[in-house]
């Protein structure tokens, strides 16, 4: 009887907590606070000078927040209702950049985390598996050559990313893949697509296009507005939603291919489907912000180190930590260096050394 009771006790404890740990809740709260603070800093500075108080008042201005017409103009591009100058500057110029940062941060982090599980490779990320450079090439080609197709950028980016990832997987496949083979194949495909990108510059007619293109290849949130939010929000919500729902599948995939199959998972199908979701997520970010390097690789590592390797926690952590880090990095890119830098420069400068640190710290790198 005593044993049955103790089992009962444990069971109810498990039900109470589930997989949500205090640490995860704390981590998400901290990430949210960082995102909000960084966002407020971001909207407080700029050419139209405002005091902190003025800017924050504009952000939390109930006349805008509760105005359906205003939201309709933001999200559906209808005509904007009359607002004060502060409100226009904050709500129309500065805040959308923060929102785009939030969306790209979340999608890139989730994409990296999914790729790491699907390939069972902690070196995997949209950047390293060729998705970024493939999508980058596709977007660049659109900007330079087929400028009429600009409204379909996310779709085109997704196609380019899928193509590149397919090539990487095909090169690495030899009755299965290994982390090292995938990374090597990714390096090769990256190089090819980067050469193609550079070649495209010579077809650009004017300097403006080239400058946009460069900002774009490094990954930049400069000049993003509600237009970008509109493009990205729906596919981002879909991709993140599916990724969160698929967390348990990812956990089972992490047990290894044979075990997953023994447990009744159609491994190839699940892997293919979730890769598609990860490509979509990465493409969303790439379509509006360009190729932000290292982000998809490093963020899942940071989250994993904090909340553990269970993908149910990891995914939720990524959805919160991605925005926090992206918005903060963008604040650094816009304000810290005196001149507007692409955010990709900042993430590369921070992410590269962090990755190096990981490599030095760990005995083995590669297999998760």
């Amino acid at each position: 009887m005593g044993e049955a009771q103790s089992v009962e006790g444990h069971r109810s404890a498990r039900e109470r907590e589930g997989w949500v740990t205090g640490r995860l809740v704390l981590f998400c709260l901290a990430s949210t606070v960082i995102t909000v603070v960084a966002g407020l800093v971001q909207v407080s500075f700029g050419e139209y000078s405002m005091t902190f108080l003025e800017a924050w008042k504009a952000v939390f201005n109930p006349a805008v927040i509760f105005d359906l017409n205003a939201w309709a103009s933001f999200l559906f591009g209808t005509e904007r209702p009359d607002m004060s100058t502060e409100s226009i500057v904050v709500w129309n110029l500065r805040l959308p950049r923060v929102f785009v940062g939030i969306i790209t941060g979340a999608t890139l982090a989730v994409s990296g985390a999914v790729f790491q599980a699907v390939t069972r490779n902690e070196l995997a990320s949209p950047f390293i598996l060729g998705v970024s450079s493939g999508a980058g090439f596709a977007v660049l080609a659109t900007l330079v050559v087929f400028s009429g197709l600009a409204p379909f950028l996310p779709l085109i980016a997704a196609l380019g990313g899928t193509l590149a990832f397919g090539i990487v997987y095909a090169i690495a496949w030899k009755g299965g893949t290994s982390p090292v083979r995938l990374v090597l194949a990714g390096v090769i495909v990256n190089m090819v697509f980067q050469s193609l990108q550079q070649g495209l510059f010579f077809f650009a007619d004017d300097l403006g296009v080239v400058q946009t293109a460069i900002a774009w290849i490094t990954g930049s949130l400069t000049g993003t507005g509600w237009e970008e939010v509109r493009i990205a929000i729906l596919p981002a919500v879909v991709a993140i939603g599916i990724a969160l729902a698929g967390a348990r599948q990812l956990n089972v995939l992490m047990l290894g291919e044979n075990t997953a199959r023994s447990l009744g998972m159609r491994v190839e199908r699940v892997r293919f489907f979730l890769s598609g979701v990860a490509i979509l997520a990465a493409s969303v970010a790439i379509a509006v912000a360009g190729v932000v390097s290292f982000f998809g690789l490093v963020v899942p590592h940071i989250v994993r180190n904090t909340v553990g390797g269970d993908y149910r926690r990891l995914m939720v952590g990524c959805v919160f930590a991605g925005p926090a880090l992206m918005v903060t990095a963008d604040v650094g890119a816009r304000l810290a260096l005196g001149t507007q830098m692409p955010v990709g420069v900042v993430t590369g400068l921070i992410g590269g050394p962090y990755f190096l640190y990981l490599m030095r710290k760990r005995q083995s790198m590669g297999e998760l």
Partner: protein
Amino acid sequence: MAGTQRDTDRERARITDDNGVAIESALVGDELELSYPSSDGTVVECARLDIPEKSVTALVGPNGSGKSTLLKALSSHLEPDTGTVRIHGEDLGSFGQKELARELGVLSQENDSLSSISVEDLVYHGRYPHRGFFDGPDEADRQAVERAIELAGIEEIRDTELGQLSGGQKQLAWIAMVLAQDTDVLLLDEPTTFLDVHHQFRVLETIRQLNEEKGVTVAVILHDIAQAARFADYLVAMHDGELYDWGPPEEVVTEQLLADVFGVEATVEYEPELQVLPKRALPDRRSD
């Protein structure tokens, strides 16, 4: 070719228990020819293989004799070139993947890569084939997990992460996972290799208990012929990709078999109980 002779003998006579009643087979392999896509040439050829219902069958044989390959075919991890595998009389191919995972549990050898997962979470993964895409664990899942953990005797480490466990404890955790799968048939690929003696016995005792209490059919690859002879109800001896012999250990284990299959000189004692005492390696037979 003593082996081939024995094979044909076996095909004629079905296995019977002590009372002379024929024993049904849970798993049957028929006319199997197995090869790997990455290499050419048939690895295993086997006219008929029976895994008798509600008993423990051990597959034995030297390295590279095709035991694991055969097990992969039995668990539908490897598509046979020719022939069929039937579970309770139905073709493996007619099952959906999850459906099959509710009938047949498999523990493969490759399972030491993951370290940051708690034992209990691992065991919960065993419920995967019983749950839909969005389902949370229900009462049946919880009970199955509790039973599996109790049976494997790993209550005290249920919250520990795999990375902090010894090889033996890890193996017990993985076994608990397949137990939670709650299948009638269980296939285990070398569950005792690399374990210390204590954990070897715990693994084998868990398997035996499962078989006796719940009538689960078990096929297990064992590295150690002496251990297999003492432990299993039936032995299947593999040699060079073919079935050398199969049946109850007292009939299968002979000094001849140890010489032919394992290349060792050994004495086999049948009284008071079956015991294999290997003495020395025979000179390489492949040279003649």
